[in-house]
């Protein structure tokens, strides 16, 4: 297997925000992860970028102008002047106005956006942005600690080059913001594994939510009950994703790695170990499709840090020791100071084998309903290195050949299958 080119996006300031006293979302976890990544020497395997900061304009590719304008202007000082807006945009309790809110949003959004662009240009095979993954944010409002939906914005960027993008979400909460954004399209398939029932946030993610109009059957939900362990999770994750790959054949993947599905999370109720969680990441890595990996939930700081550090090591394909290197945050990992502490949980696994089998079958039956691999018109596909007159863009003057310079810049979409000369599928892709 060829080693993959990995780019890692981290803004050194992104960890230095605080949602407020008692709030479970702690951006500083990102600094802790970065510190572990460095001290494990993982940066020797990947390119490190300090990413671009997204502008309001970038955010408006998905969000409404008014909402972004509000985010840009509101501060803890002038909050009184916005009382009406607060409830309208669902900003306040869960999504507090904290100092530097907009900066925070533009940092994590910029990183995801840039990751998507680097993938589009074949500058890397895997782009990592642990600060991203805020999957609850809606077009018009904040939700569940998320303000700007960097995933949607990243996927929109990927759609410039990719006919089909797959979104996979292993956060304990349903990826409702992303699902809603792409509910009507067949170009993005959203697959979410999450706890469902008993008013668990956000309340959506029923298995009967399958998409609508052209997007019918392109939203996949795998509702789970509390306490799911590594074995059960793997039992459902592997077949579901395999089926999805078989039927949808995406040319790019966005993987949301919410770490609140780990055991003993402050808000979650699953019982996964860091290894079990990482197994999913490894599986997606081995699909050999360009992938944008983002973070997400995760509310027990030390476990989030362990999990995403471990997953960084998996993505760059480098084994790291169970013993944590010394960092300025060493004390956070007491008493064991290991990467994979033993999982101790009192949570009973409420997912029976039959239940998981039934859900898998239900998902499979739905997937069979979607037409095989929808595509955008062929003439829009960017040309590959060997210039063919039939691959010229429609709007261009057909008498003018594509200049060599322009041609060099175009990028071929991987996983777009051709026959004959254009066949680029020489490397067999495992499904």
């Amino acid at each position, binding site marked *: 297997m060829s080693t993959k080119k990995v780019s890692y996006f981290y803004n050194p300031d992104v*960890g*230095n*925000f*605080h949602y407020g006293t*008692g*709030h*479970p979302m702690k951006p*500083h976890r990102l600094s802790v992860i970065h510190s572990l990544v460095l*001290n494990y*020497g993982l*940066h*020797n395997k*990947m390119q*490190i*970028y*300090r990413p*671009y900061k997204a502008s309001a304009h970038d955010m408006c*590719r998905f969000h409404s102008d008014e909402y972004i304008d509000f985010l840009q202007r509101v501060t*803890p000082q002038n909050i009184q002047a916005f009382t009406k807006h607060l409830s309208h945009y669902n900003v306040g*309790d*869960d999504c507090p106005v904290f100092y*530097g809110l907009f900066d925070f949003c533009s940092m994590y959004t910029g990183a995801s956006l*840039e990751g998507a662009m680097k993938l589009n240009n074949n500058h890397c095979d895997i782009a990592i942005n642990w600060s991203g993954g805020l999957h609850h944010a*809606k*077009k018009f409002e904040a939700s569940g600690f998320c303000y700007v939906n960097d995933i*949607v914005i990243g996927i929109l960027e990927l*759609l410039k080059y*990719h006919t089909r993008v797959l979104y996979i979400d292993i956060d304990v909460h349903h990826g409702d913001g992303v*699902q809603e*954004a*792409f*509910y009507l*399209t067949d170009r*993005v398939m959203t697959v979410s594994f999450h706890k469902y*029932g*008993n*008013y*668990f946030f956000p*309340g959506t993610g029923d298995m009967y939510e399958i998409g609508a109009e052209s997007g019918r059957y392109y*939203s996949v939900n795998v509702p789970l009950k*509390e306490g799911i362990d590594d074995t059960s999770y793997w039992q459902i994750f592997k077949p579901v994703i395999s089926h999805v790959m078989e039927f949808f054949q995406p040319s790019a993947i966005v993987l949301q790695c919410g770490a609140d599905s780990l055991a003993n999370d*402050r*808000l979650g*109720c699953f019982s996964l170990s860091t290894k079990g969680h990482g197994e999913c990441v490894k599986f997606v890595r081995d699909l050999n499709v360009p992938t944008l990996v983002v973070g997400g939930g995760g509310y*027990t700081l*030390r476990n989030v840090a362990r999990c995403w550090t471990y997953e960084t090591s998996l993505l760059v394909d480098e084994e790291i020791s169970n013993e944590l290197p*010394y960092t300025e*945050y060493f004390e*956070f990992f007491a008493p064991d100071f290991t990467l994979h502490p033993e999982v101790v949980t009192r949570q009973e696994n*409420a997912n*029976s084998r*039959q*239940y998981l089998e*039934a859900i898998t*079958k239900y998902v499979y*039956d739905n997937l069979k*309903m979607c037409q095989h691999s929808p595509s*955008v018109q062929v003439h829009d*596909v960017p040309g590959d290195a060997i210039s063919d007159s039939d691959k010229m863009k429609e709007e261009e003057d057909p008498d003018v050949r594509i200049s060599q310079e322009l041609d060099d810049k*175009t990028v071929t979409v991987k996983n777009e299958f051709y026959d004959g000369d254009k066949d680029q599928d020489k490397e067999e892709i495992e499904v």
Partner: protein
Amino acid sequence: MADVDSVNSDGTEATSASKDKLFDPSVDMLVNDFDDERTLEEEETLAAGESEDPSAELSSLQKESNMPLEELLALYRYREMQENDSPIDEDTEEPSETMEEQESEVDAQEETSKLRALYDAIPDSDPDASRLLRFSRVSEEEDEDYDYSPDEDEWRKVNKTIMVGSDYQAVIPEGLCNYDDALPYENEDKLLWDPNPLEKHVIENFLKKAATLAKPPIPLGTQIRDDEQVLYLLQQCGHNVEEALRRIRINVIPNSDTMSLWSEEECKNFESGVRCFGKNFHLIQQNKVRTRSVGELVQFYYLWKKSERHDIFANKIRLEKKKYTLHPGLTDFMDRFLEDQDGRDRSSSPNVQYSGSDNKKPTDIVQTNQKPPPEA
């Protein structure tokens, strides 16, 4: 449970429910046109048992509401198992089922209803328990954060449906497009490090040399540490090791983003800020530590939180609280006033250690005198 057992124990299929998921009719059955009437009857009695009359159901609900959680859980887990088993038995005992599995459309409906049964078998135990899971489950480490619990009504208001309409969906660009000549944001990001141009051992050697040159303020051990700044410098020098080392030697390490050392005064002010404003770092910045940005305060907070200094700080606060509750209304305001005065005094005098007894104000000494019998 007895009914279910009987289904399994008599008849031809004595295997456990979990094993016989796929029904495989035996030759005998096929030849004799096997039709199991008996199971039908059993299902009916099962169903009859389940549909109790409403008053009985109400009273049982009433009973459950007074039950301790453990009992309730036990009860429902038991029920759940039963419910999980029965539909599967039903599946496996109908030979036609295997045929129908070919026709996905028809089958999907049927499968759904069975799945529904499993789906709904969620032990609908105490809803409060799940709410606790959601928001105020407190791990020992985060005990100071336990006060986060949004009120329930907020959660009830949550949109539980996926909305459809132009206000909700993203606008998908039609077709594909190329980037223009200039890559977007080409110069707005910063490549801090690219490991590829150099061999691993070259980098390691470089780091070793750089470490000896830099003379860190704290000994960092023998292990080679990855120094982001130095690597960035190497990157800037076009991966020219000699040039990078030369620059380190003449000490033009670009302004580091890492935290500069905090002065004692800043630490003191920070602690007094935490005391006044809790974790509102913006107010602390505005009122106490103007020399640092809010971001730096947050960063410092996490490092401080696990330091010895924090333990001393927390102990002190705890003792104070205890004192106030022991002598309500007696010394509160005076103490607080003294405390504030003292805080100000301290913040203006550098190099003050908490251990230094000469800095302790009278009230502190009273405190320490009270300390030995903690229950007093």
